[in-house]
């Protein structure tokens, strides 16, 4: 989805502040939220990691931007536990003693119609173009590279295709590729001529380019 999570290249954000000697968790509830995220996937087996990532993407955009990272972790996890029928939203709100914001529902037709690519189609050095897709569901081709031309630097092993895994589509594994895009092509007139961005992209997201 073209959601608030797809932040790469969005303008208007300020300086990055690095905390010296940052602890693993700042607050005890953050460790609990992390643990509940893990346990929901590994012990409860409520959902997979792609469903989980998408549940965070489906948060109210204003909530997403102002929330702490572990608040997003908790909101996505709780949303799926409710959607999958393990917990009830009313019970969570009653226990929390107030409103418990959950993520919005999955879109009606969440997947782009992409042919599965069970065998690798590309090799190191190949020129490829990212398809101009914009499905309403989970997709891991960031918007900033769609439609752009890149060169394959590396072919990684096969991994589960996330769009399908998130949306009960045809499960499949496909190779991913480290595809290099010239910064000058992504954002004309901004980056230095020798800068580039490398995006790790599943075979299905790509087409040959010449």
């Amino acid at each position: 989805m073209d959601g608030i999570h797809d932040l790469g290249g969005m303008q208007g954000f300020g300086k990055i502040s690095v905390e010296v000697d940052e602890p693993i968790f700042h607050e005890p509830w953050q460790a609990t939220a992390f643990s509940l995220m893990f346990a929901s996937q590994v012990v409860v087996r409520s959902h997979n990691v792609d469903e989980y990532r998408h549940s965070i993407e489906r948060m109210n955009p204003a909530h997403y931007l102002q929330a702490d990272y572990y608040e997003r972790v908790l909101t996505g996890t709780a949303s799926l536990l409710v959607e999958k029928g393990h917990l009830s939203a009313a019970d969570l709100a009653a226990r929390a003693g107030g409103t418990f914001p959950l993520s919005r529902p999955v879109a009606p037709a969440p997947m782009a119609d992409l042919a599965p690519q069970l065998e690798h189609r590309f090799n190191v050095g190949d020129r490829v173009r990212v398809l101009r897709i914009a499905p309403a569901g989970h997709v891991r081709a960031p918007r900033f590279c769609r439609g752009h031309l890149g060169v394959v630097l590396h072919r990684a092993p096969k991994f589960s295709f996330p769009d399908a895994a998130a949306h009960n589509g045809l499960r499949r594994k496909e190779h991913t590729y480290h595809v290099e895009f010239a910064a000058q092509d992504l954002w004309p007139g901004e980056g230095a001529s020798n800068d580039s961005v490398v995006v790790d992209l599943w075979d299905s997201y790509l087409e040959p380019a010449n």
Partner: protein
Amino acid sequence: MKQPDIAPIEQRTQAVKDALLDKGLITGADIERFAHMPEDWKPENGAKVVARAWTDPAYRQRLLDDATAACSELGYQGPQGEYIVALEETPERHNVIVCTQCSCTAWPVLGLPPDWYKSPEYRARVVREPRRVLSEMGLQLSDDVAVRVWETSAETRYMVLPQRPPGTEHYTQDALAALVSREVLIGVAMIENPAEKDE
């Protein structure tokens, strides 16, 4: 969010925990186990990998050929470390890692990511204006050095393999590892030159 009566995040977290416990879907032991698991994942692990690569050319080659195996050799493996790739720094090229869409990181060798890495500011800006971001963070790069930003959009997890600074020829492995911070492993900081520091 305009809703004024949102329950505090501590209470919402407790609510999910209690609901799962009451339904018998998880146990208190599960919660304890996963809450403490991140303690084993830390940038000191990645630093040891780097120190070893600096002092053992065969290991360095194994790390560049198959970082997953090379990290595992030192005991560093697990979730978010299923396919690790080491990015070799050279005098001509600097590498920097980001995950624009969430906050993916090579947990076993970098640890859980720090707040700045998870911030919208870093995620939005570093792909588009890496030199300005790095400069703001204290890393000035020469125009001759190409910048490659690595977007963690699939299952590869990256770590930066920095250049060994001059003046460290007689350092122990531990002393070498101590030079390598989490920020160095992500590519937003350079190793301070010990030779210059001594002056």
